[in-house]
């Protein structure tokens, strides 16, 4: 069944692409089919209490690389959320976009592709599969954030999101591999508790990976920027689903991390700072959507805090919160989008009095907001109550940290929720509104009502979140969501939170709205990315300047560095200065010629000295008793000199002047190269090994080739194939020259 659904999604992407050519609404409608079917199926399973479904596709057998899915209770709950909210978002988007909007093909396909990736992530049962779909969600969300690609800011925000979440994915992969190594399996559902120092490293890596995706401080900087996306995308990706991936991961891996201290403390560090910093951020914003975005950072911080505690109660509370959050946050975003479309602004300083002109939206926002604030009779209340209970159930320092953070964060949450509602719908000069669009209103209403129904049917909700929590920690089975706890400590704290939050929110709402602050850290993230991009050309300009002599110098230096150590071990004792004094004379001539060639200013002079060097070397060959070799060398040298002279026709007589410093560099390099080659020869000559092959070669020449000229026999018989090969080389050169000569001829033709 999982395959069927996956294939249905992939087919849906194609169909949506085709339908999208007729307009964005047709595309969205077509795209909604697959998620709707999946959601229906998932809900029927929720009701029907079925066994986990699994699906596996071995991709590369030898590499333990495959796609493996498993639909356990946790995955089933997430599937319901992903596909259920997904369906509502598609419907909503039909109302959100005007019929003639751009991107009819791109938007629905990208959104459905995201939804598919998210399902894959939720179902994944191997670390590889998880990683692959994790990265897919990063990429598809990048496309969705960059949908309105008109401004540079949007693209920058999209890139920031991609860089942070994409890089986080790699960190996660490293962490997951360590986990798999320690636990001895790559199958997530089989991971057992791991211990040791590698477990600590793994815990930190996984937590960092989760934090990037779930927008935890200091990686949260991408989330507010991602609000540049169309509101359906924000509602779906940046509140209900994608950002939950990290949280989900924390829950899923908690069985493996139960004994790892680093897990708890890293999680608390991320969670607590995010919860507080996010809430403070939400209080400072004036764009209604950004208030919610910062609120999401805060809420995700709460989730990470609670889930990383690891106790049964905490996991039950965390998963309940996750479920509740998905519902109310999606509803709130949908409302903001509706406000935006109908009034043309999201600035709470400009908005006001919408409670009268948009009563349904106001009611939805109120229900969802109260659920977020944790007020009965709503689902959010029961979940938050459970979270406080979980905090109370702890011992040691984490008890106070967790309780303090949950309480403080919740007070701020109540405050920004109130500020958001009053700023948008509260008293003030009424803002003009456009007519209501049913497609936008209905999904928001459904989601808001779900919060109420969740409270009414608390037992059924427990049946959904309970088994999911049990999979993460067996001790979670004894807990349930409680509608009215009576006057217990947790409830007292709740009452205190709501009272304090309301006072704070009221106070802040009364104050004039200040200018929205810039996202601290976002600039830093952009700077880092851009500095890398800037830094790269800088070093490139230094390393890659296009000058051939410098390239050559670079290579010479590298070669010398690579081989010098070996050559330095020459054995001087084996060396003699010369066999005959004549050699010394020839060498002197050669050295003088070479030195002259290096400093002479005219091209002709340089060529002639080069020839002189060659003649000197031929002389040495003669002295060594190889006249034929010397003759060959002489011929070659002559041809080279003639060739050079012919080539001078179109060049200036003198070499171009070069700077002093460059001349010095060249001088130093050539002296070093000279010494290098000399010591190389000395080194090779100083270590005779085995027997010299000369006798074998002489015998061979007579036996095989029947000739006494050993060199000739080697060329024509012993290594005949190589000679043939050299002929091919020559043929290639000939063709090359022919081709280049034709170029020249054509050029002359073109010029005339």
């Amino acid at each position, binding site marked *: 069944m999982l395959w069927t659904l996956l294939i249905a999604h992939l087919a849906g992407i194609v169909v949506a692409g085709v339908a999208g050519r007729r307009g964005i609404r047709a595309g969205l409608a077509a795209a909604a089919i697959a998620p709707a079917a999946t959601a229906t199926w998932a809900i029927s399973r929720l009701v029907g209490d079925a066994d986990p479904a699994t699906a596996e596709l071995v*991709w*590369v*057998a030898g*590499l333990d*690389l495959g796609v493996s899915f498993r639909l356990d209770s946790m995955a089933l709950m997430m599937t319901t959320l992903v596909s259920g909210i997904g369906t509502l978002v598609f419907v909503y988007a039909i109302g959100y976009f005007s019929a003639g909007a751009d991107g009819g093909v791109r938007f629905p396909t990208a959104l459905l592709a995201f939804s598919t990736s998210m399902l894959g992530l939720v179902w994944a049962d191997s670390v590889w599969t998880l990683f692959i779909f994790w*990265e*897919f969600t990063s990429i598809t969300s990048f*496309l969705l954030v*960059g949908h309105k690609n*008109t401004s540079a800011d949007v*693209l920058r925000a999209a890139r920031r999101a991609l860089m942070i979440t*994409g890089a986080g994915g*790699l960190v996660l992969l490293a962490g997951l591999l360590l986990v798999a190594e320690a636990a001895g399996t790559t199958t997530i559902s089989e991971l057992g508790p791991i211990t040791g120092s590698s477990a600590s490293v793994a815990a930190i890596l996984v937590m960092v990976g989760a934090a990037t995706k779930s927008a935890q401080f200091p990686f949260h900087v991408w989330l507010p920027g991602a609000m540049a996306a169309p509101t359906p995308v924000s509602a779906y990706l940046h509140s209900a689903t994608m950002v939950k991936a990290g949280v989900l991961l924390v829950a899923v891996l908690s069985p493996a991390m139960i004994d790892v201290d680093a897990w708890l403390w890293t999680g608390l560090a991320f969670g607590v700072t995010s919860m507080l910093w996010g809430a403070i951020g939400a209080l400072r914003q004036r764009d209604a959507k950004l208030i919610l975005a910062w609120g999401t950072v805060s809420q995700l911080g709460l989730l990470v805090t609670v889930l990383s505690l690891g106790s049964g109660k905490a996991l039950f509370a965390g998963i309940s919160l996750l479920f509740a959050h998905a519902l109310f946050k999606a509803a709130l975003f949908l409302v903001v989008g509706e406000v935006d479309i109908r009034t043309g602004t999201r600035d709470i300083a400009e908005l006001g009095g919408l409670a009268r002109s948009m009563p349904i939206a106001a009611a939805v926002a109120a229900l969802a907001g109260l659920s977020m604030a944790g007020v009965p009779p709503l689902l959010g209340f029961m979940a938050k109550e459970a979270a406080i209970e979980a905090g109370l159930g702890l011992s040691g320092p984490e008890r106070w940290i967790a309780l303090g953070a949950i309480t403080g964060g919740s007070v701020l949450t109540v405050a920004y929720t109130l500020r958001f509602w009053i700023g948008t719908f509260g008293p003030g000069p009424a803002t003009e509104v456009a007519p209501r669009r049913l497609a936008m209103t209905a999904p928001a209403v459904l989601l808001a009502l779900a919060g109420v129904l969740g409270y009414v049917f608390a037992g059924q909700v427990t049946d959904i979140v309970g088994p999911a929590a049990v999979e993460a920690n067996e001790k979670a089975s004894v807990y349930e969501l409680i509608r009215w706890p009576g006057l217990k400590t947790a409830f007292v704290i709740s009452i205190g939170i709501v009272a304090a939050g309301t006072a704070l929110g009221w106070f802040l709402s009364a104050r004039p709205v200040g200018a929205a602050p810039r996202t601290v850290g976002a600039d830093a993230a952009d700077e880092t990315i851009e500095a*890398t*991009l*800037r*830094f*790269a*050309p*800088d*070093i*490139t300009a230094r*390393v*890659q300047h*296009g000058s*051939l002599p410098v*390239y*050559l110098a*670079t*290579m010479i230096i590298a*070669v010398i560095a*690579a*081989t010098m150590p*070996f050559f330095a071990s020459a054995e001087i004792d084996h060396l003699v200065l010369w066999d005959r004094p004549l050699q010394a004379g020839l060498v002197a001539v050669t050295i003088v010629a070479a030195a002259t060639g290096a400093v002479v200013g005219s091209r002709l002079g340089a060529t002639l000295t080069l020839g002189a060097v060659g003649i000197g070397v031929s002389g040495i060959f003669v002295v060594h008793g190889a006249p034929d070799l010397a003759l060959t060398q002489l011929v070659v040298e002559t041809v080279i000199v003639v060739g050079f002279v012919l080539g001078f026709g179109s060049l200036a007589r003198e070499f171009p002047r070069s700077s002093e410093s460059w001349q010095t560099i060249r001088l130093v390099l050539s002296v070093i190269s000279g010494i290098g080659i000399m010591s*190389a020869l000395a*080194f*090779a000559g100083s*270590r005779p*090994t*085995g027997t010299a092959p000369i006798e*074998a*070669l002489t015998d*061979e020449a007579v*036996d*095989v080739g029947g000739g006494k000229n050993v060199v000739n026999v080697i060329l024509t*018989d*012993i*290594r005949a*194939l*190589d000679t043939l*090969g*050299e002929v*091919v*080389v020559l043929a*290639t050169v000939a*063709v*090359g020259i022919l*081709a*280049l000569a034709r*170029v020249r001829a054509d050029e002359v033709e073109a010029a005339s």
Partner: protein
Amino acid sequence: MFAQAATSPEVVWSLLWPLLFLSIGGVLLVTVTSVIPALRRPGMPAALTILIGGASFVSTIPVWRRVADTEGPTTVVAGAMSVDAFTVVMTAIIAASVVLTALVLDDYLRREGLDGPEWYVLLLMSASGGVLMAAADDLIVLFMGLEILSIAVYVLAALHLRRTDSQEAGFKYFVLGAFSSALFLYGIALVYGATGSTQIDQIAANLRLPNEAGLTPIEDASLLLAGVALLLVGFAFKVSAVPFHVWTPDVYQGAPTPITGFMASAVKVAGFAGLARVFVISFSEFGSGDLIQDDWRPILAILAGLSLVLGAFMAAGQSDVKRMLAYSSIVHAGFLLIGVHAAGHGDAGVADAGGRALVFYLITYAAMVVGSFAVATVVAGRGDADHGVDAYRGLFRKHPALALMMAVLLFSQAGIPFTSGFMAKFRVLGAAVDGEAYVLAGVAMLAAVVAALLYLRIIVAMFLDDADDEGGDEQVAGSVRKIDVPVGAAISIVLAVIVTIGLGVLPDLGRGVVAAAADVLVNR
């Protein structure tokens, strides 16, 4: 070795067909086109080249049957060349890239107003040199292959007569290439001095203790290692590994784009084939005490690390796609070097994984890089100069199919799952991790992320940055060049994409082939 050459060696010609098609085909092509003017007409040389390259490719199949299935690996021409699974796979890659390049080249030459059979002759010559390199069982034969390969490519790089860039590229490549060839030759001499042989198997045999030549390798270690270092310099230059990469960006950018594609695929494959054969077979021992690879593997690791980091960082700042791809080829060289590094590991299991990763990477890399440069050829338009990212802006709107294909190829280069590039990187990194080269694997992952940024820039430009939406469509359509995809280029790109996706989704397809080829390197 001399004893073998004493009698006139018997040559099993039937095993040499893939090479003979290319080299004799090249010679024949230059002959017949100069004699029969009708064959010089535009299109004819290309068609003949495709025929020759195709014949060479197809003829690898019976050879494969013999060396991999029935008769086992063998050497021909008195141990000058090995015909084994590795040779055949590399030959097939090179022959395929000849065909794909010729497909692109034909339209390119017409568009640029250039023509002449010599382009194709040089292409075939160069490919035959590459095959010789991949097959060489003797360092001198290897050097010959290197020369044939290189000289033809030097000229090809310079052959775009209207662009001084092109001539500059050819010249630079020639000067630097000649320098590195000289070093390579000197390296051969030193290795011969130290081991008493130039034959790849014999070197390995002589290095084992006690060896036939009565040498004690440990005493000669520094002579041998100096030779090994110089050989490595020569190879590093050919495969453009940092710090011997300096020529790459300029030459890749200056050379005619289809030729750049050929350089990035066939030339690099030949270079790696030679490198792997020489180092993994000659200079590696498995399971014995004093491992010579302990001396060269660290150097290889440094080259790989430098290539990955510098290649990726320098690529990230480029705004010229062709130059970007040049730097990215340096990054790929880094990954491939990791493969060689793992293939030389003392543990046979790791070495096997490394060898397989290397072969798989070479196959997939050749396909995606030829395809990428084919797209660059098409997008640049007449003049072959318009390679900026701006040229790709809004490509999806102008030519959706082309943009999608390019996206697949770039995703593959970036190593995104379900493309062959992912599998290739995965296997290489897996081998590195098996071999406990964690630092190298970590550096490679970092480089992969940075490099992914640059591919994404191109992809983003193609899909998101529709050329100025507000400007009105009619205006835009008027100002933006229309993109025609010639049939030849289209076939070439589609084939490349098929390989890329095919091996990405079903990486097990060529499993036996890859395993057999790697087996040659590792389990000699």
